[in-house]
């Protein structure tokens, strides 16, 4: 079955092997599925981004400039839901994980290619239902679906939305299953666990969380549907249920989900920092195991979202301490990245700018996380813009930056073309400035007492809100620029060659773009990850 003869060097790359739409929609090639995800996930990102922009425009004046309060409720709900489930969670794993994992482990494809295609269709079905729900008028429960908003109280399209998230959840689960099995069983000979690139460790930890947390959300949404369908009170206190139980179940998924979003970005940052410092990552083992530590601790801190929901003092204390504990593995990563930079020969290509931006913004997001994990401070800032700013530093400053950065990093491999680095650096800088201008004022607003999720606010907050809206506009430019020049590069970009960054890793041993089955022969690995020193020595450049 191994048709070696046809693979003699002239094999067309995966983009050119077939051209019909059908060949894309029925593909089982992990690289093509990665691109299907890239298109759909980016689409959802811009849809949710438009909701955010409308919100920011509305908040330009204290009494609310554009919408009725009911409409505003739907805007922030739709923004949150689509961003969380249809952009942040699938972004890096489903796009770049799909594209890069088999290449990085030296395999021809993921372990279950058909399952992989199925999970894209599930994702699209879920996303379709979410869009239907938005088109019918949206949902006004907040992305958290708290009881009683989501039970018999809400008259909006909770069913459609819950069904969409339920189905998209199975897409996440199947993708994670595929990744775990692939990383376990399909590594190339010699590629031991401690030789794996750190991106794979991160994806592995992410997948474990997806496997264990997503089903809990699924059953919770199912119970809500049950509650609405039979008019019973599984969570509704008027009918004997316990609304706090809903919050526990919801956050048991949704807190680990934060790590689902951030871990893959952290993994990619390790790749980029090592590559653009021309150094082996400092403390490889610590960085690798800190991913697993984050995944483990991440499951034990969910109730820090509920400090004001009626929890015993001791319960609060335990969850507060455990939340502090998550900071340890996170800090290990930041310190090791910094130590890697030390005495490296650093070059500031676009991916590196994104990676450095990630470190700075993630550090701010992480440190303010300690503020909100502190019981007394938490009561003060609960449900204010301080929280909004905190998690946007993690999700936008961390995950969205990581998504953009990793697309830039692997773009030459994905498309075979180089993007204009000048424009890339410009976009990264504009985005960084816009981001800080948008969200830093929100820390101040929250600390001064501006509540989140209100369509109006006190007049003294206007100045900072206007700043934030101005920043959001700049941030928007930072997102649209890459869309333009990356598409431009598909046609006009220079040929990338197999390894434009001079990076280590098996994916850079293949031609760009890689052939359909990735490797003509399965590579045999005799070196550790990030052996930049050996590489420089060979080139005679060091």
């Amino acid at each position: 079955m191994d048709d070696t003869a046809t693979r003699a060097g002239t094999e067309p790359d995966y983009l050119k092997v077939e051209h019909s739409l059908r060949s894309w929609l029925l593909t089982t090639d992990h690289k093509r599925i990665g691109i299907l995800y890239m298109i759909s996930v980016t689409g959802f990102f811009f849809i949710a981004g438009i909701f955010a922009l409308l919100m920011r425009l509305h908040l330009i004046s204290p009494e609310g400039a554009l919408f009725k309060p009911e409409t505003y409720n739907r805007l922030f709900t739709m923004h949150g839901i689509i961003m969380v489930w249809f952009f942040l969670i699938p972004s890096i794993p489903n796009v770049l994980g799909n594209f890069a994992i088999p290449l990085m482990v030296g395999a021809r494809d993921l372990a279950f290619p058909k399952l992989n295609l199925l999970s894209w269709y599930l994702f699209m079905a879920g996303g379709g239902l979410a869009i239907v729900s938005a088109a019918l008028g949206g949902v006004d429960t907040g992305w958290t679906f708290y009881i009683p908003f989501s039970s018999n109280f809400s008259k909006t399209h909770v069913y459609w939305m819950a069904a969409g998230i339920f189905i998209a959840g199975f897409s996440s689960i199947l993708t994670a299953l595929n990744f775990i099995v692939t990383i376990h069983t399909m590594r190339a000979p010699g590629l031991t666990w401690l030789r794996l690139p750190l991106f794979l460790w991160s994806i592995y930890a992410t997948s474990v969380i997806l496997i264990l947390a997503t089903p809990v959300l699924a059953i919770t949404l199912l119970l809500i549907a049950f509650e609405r369908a039979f008019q019973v009170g599984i969570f509704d206190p008027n009918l004997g249920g316990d609304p706090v139980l809903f919050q526990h179940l919801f956050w048991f998924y949704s807190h680990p989900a934060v790590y689902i979003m951030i871990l893959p970005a952290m993994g990619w940052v390790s790749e980029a920092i090592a590559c653009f410092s021309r150094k082996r990552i400092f403390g490889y083992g610590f960085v690798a195991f800190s991913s697993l530590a984050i995944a483990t601790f991440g499951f034990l801190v969910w109730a820090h979202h509920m400090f004001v929901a009626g929890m015993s003092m001791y319960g609060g204390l335990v969850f507060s301490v455990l939340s502090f504990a998550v900071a340890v593995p996170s800090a290990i990563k930041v310190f090791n990245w910094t130590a890697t930079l030390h005495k490296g020969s650093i070059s500031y290509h676009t991916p590196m700018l994104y990676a450095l931006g990630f470190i700075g913004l993630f550090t701010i997001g992480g440190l303010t996380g300690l503020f909100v994990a502190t019981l007394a401070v938490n009561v003060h800032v609960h449900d204010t813009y301080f929280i909004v700013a905190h998690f946007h530093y993690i999700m936008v400053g961390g995950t969205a930056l990581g998504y953009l950065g990793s697309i830039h990093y692997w773009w030459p491999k994905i498309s075979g073309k180089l993007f204009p680095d000048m424009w890339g650096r410009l976009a990264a800088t504009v985005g960084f400035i816009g981001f800080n201008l948008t969200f830093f004022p929100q820390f101040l607003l929250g600390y001064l007492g501006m509540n989140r999720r209100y369509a109006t606010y006190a007049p003294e907050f206007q100045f900072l809100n206007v700043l934030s809206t101005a920043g959001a506009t700049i941030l928007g430019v930072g997102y649209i620029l890459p869309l333009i020049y990356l598409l431009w590069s598909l046609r006009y970009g220079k040929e990338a060659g197999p390894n434009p960054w001079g990076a280590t890793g098996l994916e850079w041993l293949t031609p760009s773009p890689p052939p359909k089955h990735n490797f003509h022969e399965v590579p045999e690995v005799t070196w550790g990850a990030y052996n930049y020193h050996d590489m420089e020595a060979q080139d005679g450049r060091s």
Partner: protein
Amino acid sequence: MDGPETSIVAEQFQSLEQQKDADTLGMWVFLATEIMFFGGLFLAYTVYRIMYPEAWAEASGHTSFAIGTINTFVLLTSSLTVVLGLDAATLGRQRKLILFLVLTIVLGLTFLLLKGFEYYHHYKEGLFPGPGFRLEPEYARAALLFMCLYFAMTGLHALHMIVGLGLMSFLLIRAWRGLIRPEFPAHVEIIGLYWHFVDIVWIFLYPLLYLVDRHQ
């Protein structure tokens, strides 16, 4: 799972061994997801049982002890036939494999039939959540919660049984056509794993739903 259709080893794998490992690990990981899926329900059950112990005892008295017990035996026996089927597949005994698969399917259908009969009984008794619900008024609210969870848990379990029966029928067709080869009985093994899992869920459901405080 992606099965070998024409040649045994799918093109993404290097060897049969690797494919076997991947298939089996895939099922185990899936079962981990399933455990957490049912876990949410078990948590809700536990919380409300602690909140409403009397209502729980009262409502669980309305489940059918006889049917629950018989069904437990039926399911456990079906797990035995699955294992015997795997044994037969490994040894390449085609006819025995088919026999045990048929037995498993018959036992699975028996379980569902009895369960359906029990549901019908609940319906007649007015235990379905909704306007027709009638149970002692002093416990009605909490008893309704019990019945909700009862139907959610057993209903999801039954759904898993139906999927399991579909998978078993798939195996039966393959065995009938002689496509299950002794050197690669992975399908029998991983579908068997799934079947055992569904069985184990029932082993937890049975005491929690049928035996709670029966002695009172």
